[in-house]
């Protein structure tokens, strides 16, 4: 645990404020960590993933003794030090060769983790195409029925979405849609797709990650025709160990902010009608009442106005209507 520091100058204060929790979060910073031993494949895979994640990526290029499935304290320490909330750990051991572990943090604590084994890797450099500049958002394509049913693949989808595209944005340049990351799961048995809690002994199918650049061709309509060109990296991954999120922590991480005032006014929530604040700062409400029935109003009786016995009723009616017209239908009342 790092000690709580009080900022000594305005710059460090600003830097600390930038790290405080926000309602709308910044994109996750990912730290790419090398484990005790990394082979050529893992190094290449991490380098390519990092090039896709830039500028929100930090590289830890020295070797580190980390075993996140046994002890996650070093991840927690680095997360706090670097204000990072995601990790990609590359580690190659005899038991688990070419392993990539994707870990996600919440509030400085480890949320969930998934270990993937790299079976096949083709680097981004081997495809002679234009590469996306740093900071460009990729389009994501997930293809498999397992992404909807199987908990391991639901977690994988969530992790990969967070890794590549986790930031909530308001708008995007349509001309800036340049590359695609496609994640496809190999065909799986019926049993794996139907059993939701994954208590089968069947091996999980391979996951293919492919990168493509997008070519938008004219189609004679507003929507262009899409063509894809392989860009790399292309990875074939197998699912290994994982750690699901703690339900309490997950619940806390999924908490959403309340609707904003402007959203409420836009119609997303309830709006307070007929209530306003006047220039004196008093709260005023407007109450609409039904039209008053003035036909039976008793006005002043005078001897001079009294006509013949038959005329009496008609005259008083006229008078009543006159008063009614002069009064406003709407009245302002002070709200209770």
């Amino acid at each position, binding site marked *: 645990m790092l000690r709580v520091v009080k900022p000594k100058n305005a710059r460090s204060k600003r830097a600390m404020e930038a790290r405080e929790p926000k309602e709308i*979060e910044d994109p996750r910073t990912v730290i790419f960590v090398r484990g005790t031993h990394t082979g050529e494949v893992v190094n290449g895979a991490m380098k390519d993933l990092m090039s896709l994640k830039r500028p929100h990526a930090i590289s830890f290029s020295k070797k580190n003794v980390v075993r996140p499935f046994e002890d996650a304290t070093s991840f927690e320490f680095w997360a706090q030090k670097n204000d990072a909330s995601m990790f990609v750990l590359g580690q190659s051991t005899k038991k688990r060769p070419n392993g990539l572990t994707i870990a996600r943090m919440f509030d400085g604590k480890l949320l969930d983790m998934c270990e993937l084994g790299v079976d096949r890797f083709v680097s981004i450099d081997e495809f002679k195409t234009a590469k996306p500049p740093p900071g460009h958002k990729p389009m994501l394509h997930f293809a498999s029925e397992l992404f909807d049913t199987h908990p391991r693949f639901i977690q994988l989808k969530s992790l990969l979405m967070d890794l590549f595209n986790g930031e909530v944005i308001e*708008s995007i340049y349509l001309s800036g849609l340049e590359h695609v990351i496609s994640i496809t799961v190999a065909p799986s048995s019926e049993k794996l797709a139907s059993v939701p809690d994954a208590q089968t002994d069947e091996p999980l199918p391979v996951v293919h990650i*492919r990168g493509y650049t997008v070519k938008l061709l004219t189609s*004679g309509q507003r929507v262009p025709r899409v063509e894809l060109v392989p860009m790399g990296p292309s990875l074939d991954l197998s699912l290994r160990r994982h750690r699901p999120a703690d339900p309490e922590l997950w619940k806390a991480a999924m908490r959403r902010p309340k609707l904003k005032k402007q959203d409420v006014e836009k119609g997303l929530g309830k709006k307070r009608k007929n209530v306003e604040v006047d220039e004196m700062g008093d709260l005023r409400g407007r109450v609409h009442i039904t039209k008053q029935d003035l036909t039976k109003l008793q006005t002043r009786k005078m001897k001079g106005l009294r006509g013949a016995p038959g005329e009496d009723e008609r005259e008083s009616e006229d008078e009543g209507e006159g008063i009614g017209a002069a009064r406003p239908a709407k009245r302002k009342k002070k709200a209770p």
Partner: protein
Amino acid sequence: MDVSDILTSQASKHKSILVEKDIPPDIDPSFLTVTDTNAIDNESYVHERETYLQANARDGIQLLIAALFSLPTLSSPEGPLAQLPAPTTQLPRAKPLPKPKPVTKWEKFARAKGIHSQRRDRKVWDEESQTWVARWGWRGKNKTEESQWLHEVPANADTDYDPSKEARAARRAQIAKNERQRTQNLARSQQGQAVRAPIDREQELERTLATTRASTASMGKFDRMLEGEKKPRGVKRKFEPIERSVEAEKSASLALLKKLGNGHRSSKKAEQDPSGESIGDGNILNVRKAVRFASHGQGAVALAHKSGTGRNSRQKRKGKQ
């Protein structure tokens, strides 16, 4: 004129943008994500894997592009800017939701009254220099009054009236007031947070009650117990152990003997008194008591005034102690 031929020939130039899927894929335009839950075709996957993956991805992306291009757009110099809706996929947050700021006293009052205060700009227009200057702080506008070269002095001002100093004092007072209010607000917000535990309050009450019980002349021995009053908790008589070391027994006995030899006087004052005149050292006269008696309780100073001599000044001082 039949234009259908022209239309078909024109359409054949372009490839189709239509995509047929058994289950329509789930599209989340906010995260630029499309999830295709159709089953993967095993045969084409095995035989021509890369082509199949690419074709499948193309179909999904075509649908995503169609969804993105149908969104409302804003024009901008770099091209159309699509306005994205709120995300449908929920991803976990990296940090917890920010805690609401504690309300200041003014904010609380303003909310109760429904006052909407307008935010003051940090910059104000300076007519002299025709620029925007800071309202306060470095080269702030609030320092112009004290730094101007010519000051207006009221007609009834004192001779040592310094208008520059006055203006500065007023500004400093305002700063001090702001700081005071800030600290008070801070204290108020922290007071709300740190609610004292109820068990502490109970303990405190019990302790006070126990003290007051023992504060009568008889140490509470002859006090009547009220109805519903509990016995003080945690009060235990302490007995000395029967077997003790010889040293401890000896010192305890000696202390008792010393007390007996000194009569009943056991006050700390007597013990601290370093002079040889205190009782217990063979001097039978209790000087303090004697002075009190002689001066009718008025003290040694009054006695000295009465006698009018400094003969026994040393004793007077002693008596005052």
